[in-house]
């Protein structure tokens, strides 16, 4: 069996001389004990299992939404207890700080008065909801679920790329990947003490219960989905089933007297907590997007009266805006008086004159991003662009440098991935999930996304990405 290792970046399974790292030696040996035919058989088994269980996501743009499976690579990614400890502490720190920051932004705004974060960044942000100033969610918890994207730099150090504070998705794959791998490759688990992940739905349910409105000791909780054609519908129904709560759509809900009810076979029944998987803009046609057919008229009013918990809280998106990212270390120091545990990618800030000059001169080395942009819109990947493209971008940048940030191109780490005839290095990232209820808890595992194409950086499921089971070891691996 061939195992190739990556000449560039950090290879998680092999050192620079190409020797297998101690952590991965048992895994490599276990795979080497299987021949090609056996691997092919297992691969078919695993694919059939995903299709039969309907573990799929919906692709738009094709006639009536085609269901696809999210490709799964069976080589697990292993993290040591020590590595995890850092990630866990780092995420708990970020999530705590983010929630204090949000609570401050929507009340006294100390951080703006003291100039920790520039006022205009917040006031210009589309995600900042002025109408929510003065509305503090239960226990001050805004982000019940955060999925933070991490990369491993050349030294193997975990670096934060971004926090997802709105509707982070992918956790169902964390659980299903584990389930699948343990059935298709049970022997891999023999020599590793892997921490289980199946408790996630309980953890989520506990966090949601904890933040139910005052006086609702036995809260009625529901998952709010845009519906069956949403690409993450499988996850929505998965979480509802695993938590044992109803999966509702906007049309199942009604607001009366500032309380939210769902339409049941026995009439209207009050709902206390909505774990919503709908973006802010679609939640309530009265307040936000008036053409929304996904949301519930009057929901925001009920929320402001404290009669319903919405998780994550509306307005949380302001905290994960790209323009806030460079200030995270200051935010953490201001609210917690601590140094930031997980490093970030060095970021040049366009509104800062020195940085803007640097960006202008180093466009060929930098990835420049529009602060409010997402999905690659308004972005330049300098090292991959032509000189003409860079020149064109430079003039756009010069018009409004304050709208941009820039970062050096970060190399992803590589991880062995089965390619039908060999184990080859492919780029991976990591999205762990942190829950905030009675304290912050991080699920020991996470979604490792992998760019299945050789040389590719794209890990998104809709564009040739796949995923892996992510193992967090309970103790030292010997």
């Amino acid at each position: 069996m061939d195992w190739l290792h990556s000449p560039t970046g950090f290879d998680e399974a092999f050192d620079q001389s190409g020797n297998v790292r101690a952590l991965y030696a048992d895994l490599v040996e276990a795979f080497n004990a299987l021949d090609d035919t056996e691997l092919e058989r297992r691969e078919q088994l695993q694919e059939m299992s995903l299709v039969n269980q309907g573990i799929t996501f919906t692709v738009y743009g094709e006639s009536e939404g085609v269901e696809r499976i999210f490709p799964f690579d069976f080589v697990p990614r292993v993290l040591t207890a020590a590595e995890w400890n850092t990630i866990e502490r780092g995420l708990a720190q970020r999530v705590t700080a983010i929630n204090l920051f949000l609570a401050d932004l929507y009340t006294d705004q100390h951080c703006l008065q003291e100039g920790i974060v520039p006022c205009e960044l917040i006031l210009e942000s589309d995600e900042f909801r002025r109408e929510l100033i003065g509305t503090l969610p239960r226990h001050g918890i805004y982000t019940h679920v955060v999925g933070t994207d991490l990369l491993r730099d050349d030294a193997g150090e975990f670096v934060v790329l971004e926090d997802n504070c709105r509707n982070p998705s992918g956790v169902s794959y964390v659980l299903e990947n584990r389930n699948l791998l343990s059935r298709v490759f049970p022997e891999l688990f023999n020599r590793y003490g892997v921490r289980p992940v199946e408790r996630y739905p309980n953890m989520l349910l506990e966090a949601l219960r904890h933040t139910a409105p005052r006086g609702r000791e036995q809260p009625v909780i529901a998952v709010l989905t845009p519906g069956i054609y949403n690409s993450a519908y499988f996850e929505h129904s998965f979480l509802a089933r695993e938590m044992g709560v109803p999966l509702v759509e906007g049309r199942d809900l009604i607001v009366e007297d500032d309380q939210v009810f769902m339409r049941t076979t026995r009439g209207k029944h009050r709902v206390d907590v909505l774990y919503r998987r709908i973006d802010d803009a679609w939640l309530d046609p009265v307040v936000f997007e008036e053409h929304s057919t996904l949301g519930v008229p009057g929901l925001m009013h009920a929320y402001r009266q404290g009669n319903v918990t919405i998780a994550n809280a509306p307005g949380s998106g302001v905290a994960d805006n790209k323009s806030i990212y460079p200030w995270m270390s200051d935010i953490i120091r201001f609210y917690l008086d601590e140094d930031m545990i997980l490093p970030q990618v060095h970021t040049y800030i366009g509104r800062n004159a020195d940085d803007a000059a640097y960006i202008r001169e180093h466009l060929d080395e930098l990835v420049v991003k529009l602060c409010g942009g997402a999905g690659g819109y308004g972005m330049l990947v300098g090292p991959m662009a032509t000189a003409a493209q860079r020149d064109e971008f430079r003039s756009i940048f010069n018009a409004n440098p304050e709208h941009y940030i820039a970062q050096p191109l970060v190399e992803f780490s590589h991880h062995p991935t089965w390619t039908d005839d060999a184990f080859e290095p492919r780029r991976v990232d990591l999205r762990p999930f942190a829950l905030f209820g009675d304290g912050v808890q991080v699920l020991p595992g996470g979604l490792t996304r992998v760019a299945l194409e050789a040389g590719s950086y794209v890990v998104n499921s809709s564009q040739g990405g796949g995923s892996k089971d992510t193992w967090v070891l309970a103790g030292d691996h010997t």
Partner: protein
Amino acid sequence: MMGMLARAAENIYWLGRYLERSESVARMLQVTEQLSIEIRGLDPELAAGTWDDLLSIYPGSGVASPGGDDPDVIAEALTHAFLLSADNPLSVASSIRSARENARVIRDNLTMESFILLNESHLRLNQYAQHDTTDRMEMRRAVSSTRQEIFGIWGAIQQTFTRDEGLRFLDMGTVIERAYRTLMLLQIKLPRMLESPDQIDAPIYYARIRADLKTVASLENYRRTYGTELDPMQVARFLLFDRRSPHSVHVCLRMLKRQFDQLEYGSPLTNPARLLGKLDARLEFEEHEILASTALDQVCSELVDDVIEIHEAISRLYFTV
């Protein structure tokens, strides 16, 4: 007590109806083909005509009679139309697809075991449809394996479901569909069944009655009660009033009433309860009058209307909140 989500209840009720419908269409395909093969040597025209019943019992199919008198051509066209066609909303594949769509919507209410079996069945039928199979052996195999799969799905549901409102709605959907189909069959078949056997070859006459009983999965139950004697009035009585056969109209309506009464235990009288009570009383106390009627098929047609009215009343009470 908190009810279940109205939309979920409606989906689960229709899941029951679609599963029952797909099994009943698959069964009817099997029986029709079998009968047509059995009698074609004796009466080729009649053998071709047996397929027409399929169109009458499922008027909503939108399938046109292929015409001609070649039983093979007719069998091939109609088996395809009722097994795999996506244009026919009543085809087995369409019903399984609808059942699976409903199951996806209420996946949080279903157990994993039930969903996986249903999904597998849907994927297999999809494969047959993609290959656009017209090979009759293939289609026969598909019909028979699909029936087995549906029994597997029901088994998984009965063994794994929480005994709550959801299961009641599923059962209600199943039995109302079944009562409806048995009545449709009787309505179409009774006039011919009650013809004097002198007017037709005896072997064909009896083969047809046996096929009719099989169409509603009741031949074995009938034999257990009456042995091999096939008297048409007895068959009609059996399919309408028998108290032990799971496909008799009265048993279906009683199951429906039982589920309904348990849902509404202690509640004031509702419209579906009133309709169900009336129909149950009629079947309980008017057996002789009904069987003595000179237009029994007409009575069956009235009963079909009653069942539709009950379905509508249930929808209004539970699904439109």
